[in-house]
């Protein structure tokens, strides 16, 4: 069995049928990581020892016929999700040696099923960026072309899945951080509705936008992970009391008569022609499957990036203030408290993180609050309204995930404004608290994957998975060299 070519369902069956043991499966992945990850650099920490122990425990459950969907399944976890006793760095020098004394709720839930942790994956520092090149260590490469970025901020998770170094992974998405790297690496990533998955234990970037979600080889695999981690959590007051359904329940149901909206503004000049063509072709596929395409507009899109960077920057500036080096993290020097934290923060944070902190504090400063932060909140209301208007006449929305394919390392990530504008296709989803899934819909002339996004109504992940799955049944993934 080539473990990189099978779905989670098939892995489950192989484990339950004793075709492979949990230990063998974990070993195979660890072996693959040892061979390929020197080039991809998708992991910051590989947890070989813990994986062995977890696999043994999982095997007992399997042998006792007590297996759940993820028992014995190896997974990679983004390094901003706290794991008890295992270093959690946020790819920052600030937290290089931070070992949390507690598990994130999603980790508790996965442990409850007996999953096997392979390691912690790289990301843009504190999830700020779209290239994974702002990471202080493990600047991940794109498995389709290691001269290119994997996207970000969950670039490590997306690249690991893409290169077959994990069958699936968890990422987090604040403005596109699951979807955009999924698009760049040719895999499927689901950003759930805000409140669907507990944020407890996710090191916060922007609390009103952050959401943990799965990255996998298919929409169905994403659904299996989401089934495991979703639900109301008493440790997160913003987690929703909406009952957790089987997110894969609608898989296989016909999408005949489904209305798919294409907002014009997402197909404008700033989007590459190759991307537009691939997404438009995918829309035609949906038409063939019986869906009805609806032309629509989102006029506030041009302000979305500004609103996003103000809101996320303000929250980030406050969230990251706790990193003062007193109890954990990089400890600077100085003769006074002020000197000490200034030194800790100057040395601990990278340039992009500092830029966001400055931006956020500026937006919240007395005299500027009304001009920036309050306006951004007003825009948020406008964006929500425009989405509601579209959903009055459509079931899902189809857009490109990113205006381009993965770019070359060093090409773009040094120009912050250019980088920020590249988030145009993804940020409104977070601002409006909606669920969205990115899936590959083609490859450009260089063989780089192109991704499209389906955006759903709040708490309607099941329809997104159904719709994505309907397309994936007829789509052939072009494997990269690590999985050939």
């Amino acid at each position, binding site marked *: 069995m080539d473990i990189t070519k099978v779905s989670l369902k098939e892995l489950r069956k192989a484990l339950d049928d004793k075709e492979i043991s949990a230990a063998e499966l974990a070993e195979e992945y660890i072996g693959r990581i040892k061979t390929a990850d020197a080039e991809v650099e998708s992991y910051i920490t590989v947890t070989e020892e813990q994986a062995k122990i977890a696999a043994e425990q999982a095997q007992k459950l399997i042998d006792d016929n007590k297996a759940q969907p993820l028992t014995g399944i190896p997974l990679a976890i983004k390094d901003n999700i706290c794991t008890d006793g295992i270093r959690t760095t*946020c790819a920052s020098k600030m937290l290089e040696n931070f070992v949390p004394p507690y598990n994130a709720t999603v980790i508790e839930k996965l442990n409850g099923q007996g999953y096997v942790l392979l390691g912690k994956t790289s990301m843009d520092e504190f999830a700020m960026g779209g290239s994974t090149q702002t990471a202080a260590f493990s600047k991940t490469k794109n498995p389709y072309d290691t001269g290119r970025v994997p996207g970000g901020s969950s670039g490590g998770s997306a690249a690991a899945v893409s290169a077959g170094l994990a069958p699936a992974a968890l990422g987090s998405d604040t403005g596109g951080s699951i979807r955009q790297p999924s698009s760049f690496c040719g895999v499927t990533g689901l950003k759930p509705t805000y409140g669907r998955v507990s944020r407890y234990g996710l090191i916060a970037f922007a*609390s009103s936008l952050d959401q943990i979600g799965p990255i996998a080889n298919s929409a169905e695999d994403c659904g299996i992970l989401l089934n495991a981690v979703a639900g109301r959590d008493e440790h*997160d007051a913003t987690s929703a009391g909406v009952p957790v359904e089987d997110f894969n329940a609608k898989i296989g149901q016909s999408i005949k008569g489904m209305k798919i909206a294409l907002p014009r503004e997402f197909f404008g000049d700033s989007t590459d022609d190759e991307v537009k063509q691939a997404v438009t072709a995918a829309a035609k596929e949906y038409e063939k499957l019986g869906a009805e395409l609806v032309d629509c507009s989102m006029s506030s899109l041009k302000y979305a990036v500004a609103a996003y960077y103000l809101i996320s920057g303000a*929250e980030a500036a406050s969230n990251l203030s706790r990193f003062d080096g007193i109890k954990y993290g990089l400890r600077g020097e100085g003769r006074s408290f002020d000197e000490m934290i200034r030194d800790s923060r100057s040395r601990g944070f990278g340039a992009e993180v500092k830029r966001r902190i400055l931006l956020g504090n500026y937006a919240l400063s007395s005299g500027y609050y009304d001009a920036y932060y309050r306006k951004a909140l007003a825009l948020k209301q406008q964006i929500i309204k425009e989405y509601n208007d579209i959903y009055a006449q459509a079931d899902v929305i189809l857009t490109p995930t990113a205006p381009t394919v993965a770019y070359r390392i060093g090409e773009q990530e040094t120009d912050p404004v250019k980088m920020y504008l590249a988030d145009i296709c993804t940020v409104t989803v977070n601002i409006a608290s909606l669920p969205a899934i990115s899936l590959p819909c083609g490859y450009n002339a260089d063989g780089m994957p192109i991704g499209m996004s389906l955006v759903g109504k709040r708490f309607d992940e099941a329809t997104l998975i159904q719709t994505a799955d309907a397309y994936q049944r007829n789509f052939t993934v072009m494997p990269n060299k690590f999985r050939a």
Partner: protein
Amino acid sequence: MKLYPTIGLEIHAELMTESKVFCTCSAKFGGEPNSRCCPVCSGLPGTLPVLNSKAVEYIIKAGYIMNCEISRFTKWDRKNYFYPDLPKAYQISQMPRPVCLGGYVDIESEGKTKRMRINRIHLEEDAGKLVHENRISLADYNRCGIPLIEIVTEPDFHSAADVTAFFEKIRLMLQYAGVCDGRLEQGSMRCDVNISLAPEGSDTLGTRTEVKNLNSLRAIQRAVEYEIYRQTELIENGERVIQETLHFNDATGETSSLRSKEDAHDYRYFPDPDIPPIIFTEEELAAIKADIPEMPQQRYERYTKEYGISGADAAVLINTKAVSDFFEAAVKAYDNPKPIATFITVELMRRINLGEVDAENIPFAPENFARLVELAETGKISKDNRKMILRDMTASGGTPDEIAEREQLWIKEDSELTEKTVDEILAANPKAVEQYRNGETKVFGFLMGQCNRALKGSASPAAIKRVLEEKLK
């Protein structure tokens, strides 16, 4: 030119919830350093606050007893600043939408009833504590996340007496409401005082200073008096008062600068995205209001009107909640409030004031105290023996009945013994007897005392008096 002080207060009161405001750690005072904290209240990355609904209930009660409007919609904000005792580098507080708005408390000060207006009351979290040792500072996060209410008044105060009367009054009200234990020595209530001076009759206020963190009545009074004196001196010498935040030094009785207006923080308040806003229904608010216990003023009315206790005694009873609660329990055991009240105000309060008995930890049960009063009222023991028995109860922990039995203090009304004793006393004091018979009736008291002492309380004073009068005829 006469200068007139104008004063406004910000009072922080810790709520007496079991657990902290955003996590489940114990909210008790003290404990080994950092023994009462968890990843949430010590601000570890990834943790999230979850609001304690009990704290919300308590602030609503505080609002009602101070006649505030309770906001139907309330939310929390982050107040951002760096300080080593604040592990998240922001305090979760409330800015534009506090739980309580507008209100008032009437106080008695300088012989007048004055209405002091409340601007707002909001709910926030306390910070930790720093301990400075030699050249090291140590942080203790036990206090981090203890729920605090901040009561902000209007500038309606004009003297130290106004301020202390108000502080005492709300301390008592919060205690009665079961909202704050009011233990000043444990820092349960702290007061910031804003003071400015202006010529009497002036329309505008002078430049104000803020004295931070006063935690005793005496400190509040001294700080206000000192600051009025200091500002008066400055103005009269033609100097300027600088807008600044001050620290009051208990040892010297003087204030000193902490920071000036220029160094003031920009707290960059914004809505806390981790805590959803709350919308209260009328039913929820009505249920909380109905749950507020009797306030000191109501008890005072009941004591004076229903029980016929004097205003002075009633005031003594209510002014210490523990004493008033003790009285209530005693009355429940023996339904005769007046003598119980009198014995408390005369005897128990004396022992409390002498420091022999701790009001918060009275060493005998109110039922036993009530029984003691009952024994005296029903003539089973003499009133004079009550004090002795009370002292014995304090020391031995025995009941009044046990002690009366052990010490043989029961009034036996043995007329033979009484007559015999009176005869002996009269025989031993022929001069007094003669004086009495010559019309100097005031020696009767002396003879009464002699008989009483000899009988050791085994006869009631009425019986002794009857026999003595008979024999002296």
